[in-house]
């Protein structure tokens, strides 16, 4: 089965991470950017799977009695 060109290059975060590593930036700036990339991946997943709509199990057991 033919592999699509994007898959060879990696996902957008991996591609961007390589660009950051290649770019002339201070180590601290690179580290800050990569931290943002990781957080962006998390948020991207949360939005795609609508994770913010998932209730923790503990909520289902709450009884408002007091």
């Amino acid at each position: 089965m033919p592999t699509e060109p994007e898959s060879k290059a990696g996902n957008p975060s991996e591609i961007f991470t390589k660009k950051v590593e290649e770019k002339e930036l201070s180590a601290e700036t690179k580290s800050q950017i990569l931290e943002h990339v990781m957080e962006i991946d998390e948020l991207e997943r949360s939005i795609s799977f609508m994770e913010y709509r998932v209730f923790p199990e503990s909520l289902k057991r709450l009884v408002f009695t007091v």
Partner: protein
Amino acid sequence: MPSRPNSIKTIKIEIHSYPQYDFPSILEEHSSGDSYYLKKKLHRKYFEDYFAAIDVKTIVIEDNYIDRDFLEDYSKYYVKSYSDPLKYCKRIHAFSSSFNEKQFTSALINNDAEFIKQNLVEKYLGFIVLKPLPEAVIGRTCLVPYKKLSDSHSRYYPIIRNYEVNLLGIELTIEGLAFQEQDTVAAACATSALWSAFHYTGISFQHPILSPIEITESVVKHGVAFNERAVPSKGLDLPQLIAAINDVGLEAEVIPVENPTDLKRIAYAYLKGSIPVILGAKLIEKLPGNFRNPTQFDPDMDAHAVTLIGFGVSSKNVIASANVFKTKAENLIRLYAHDDGVGPYSRLVFDDKKVPLSYNADRTARVEVESIGTSWYGKYIREVGQVRFVPQVCIAPVYHKLRLPYKGVEERIKLFNRIYRMASLFLNITSNQDITWDIFLSYGNLLKEEIRKDRGISEDKKKKLLKILFPRFLWIVQAYEGDGKLVTIVYDATSFERCQNVVFVNISSESFQQNIIQMQSNTDVSNFYKQNISANELFEKIGTQFPA
């Protein structure tokens, strides 16, 4: 054939100067409550303090009052008891003017319009219905919210409405929201919280306003099982609370709350958009030297529900500057709630204190969690503020067309904010980096009113914008740097989540737009953000000021 007694019922009116005739005396002498229980009630102290705060000078006590909500509870439950209470209540009216019985009677008989206007209509502070029950005597209560100016914060009460009151033919109006305490028969705390919320949504979304026992019955109607009897009611769980909201034709937006900052953001976003929020919280009692769960609360199960109806915003900026994602809601220093355990407009204070709640994995120690201060009495130490809330969940009763939840918008903006910060570092952009976001619910007509009044928008643009057919519900997102607005982004709140839902963008800062254009024109950055439909939408629409 027996005939009906030929008697006419009468209303007895008493007028007293306040606080000479104080709130404990009113309760002792005019409710049928047991003296022992009345003395223990926090409501007694709370209303005494509240009457002083809103400057009550005269009270008018009206007996033989028929309260629709109590009548429903009475007809469906109490009347069938062996020792049924009377169906008549007493109504306590509060005024900020001073007058005596002679002046009041004279004004009524002589139709003294000036006295009535100056001393009654303009000075009316609301009423409390006293139910003829042994313990839960505080019935439907509509009082003005406390509005005195403060140097430390400003108070906002978006969830109040007008109530028309008739006292011996005099039309009085009160702007507030109805409150009542639970009787643990027809209603528990969640029922009382729903009942207050429905008093607002019933007007804004035009649905029937159910009495407490009707709310409890509505849950049974939806087939949601009670572990115990439905009536007498010991409480509702989350599915039951949702079923009660569905029963009046609304949807329940259920939002788990991670911490007090999360609570500030959720509550602010919905309250500013005139949607009441029911807060579910665990309770922790403070004891000398440490915190622990009091015996009557199961830390894993028992919770309390209150209706959030307002908020207090700090006069100083208290937003933590180190946060990557900052919102204006973080300047909230308190919430105002109808808490049936305390009273109307009671304070929930954001004071950054932690309490031990759950056990750790090996159950050797309790995990500390962030909490908020309350005005509750403790079980062990009967002083105000002994019990703290650990917020768990917010439930917003919303119109069915309001589909995009707050969290859906917040996550989109968090993502955009991160990409903007990341791209700024990558491209060495230094302007407009200290951004604070303001996210709240609004309405198409309100947005048009704001556009119309905005002097920063040109005439030609106003003409164009006012002709846009906006959806009824909108999420407004504004970015600020200091006091300067950078951009307004408007989301269609009636839209579904997996689509582009920005309907309007208004740029207020040219340098911010230039930053976005610079990011768009860099292929490394644009290839990165295009992976996400919502981020791509924001970059495209801010770059072009949508609609162009």
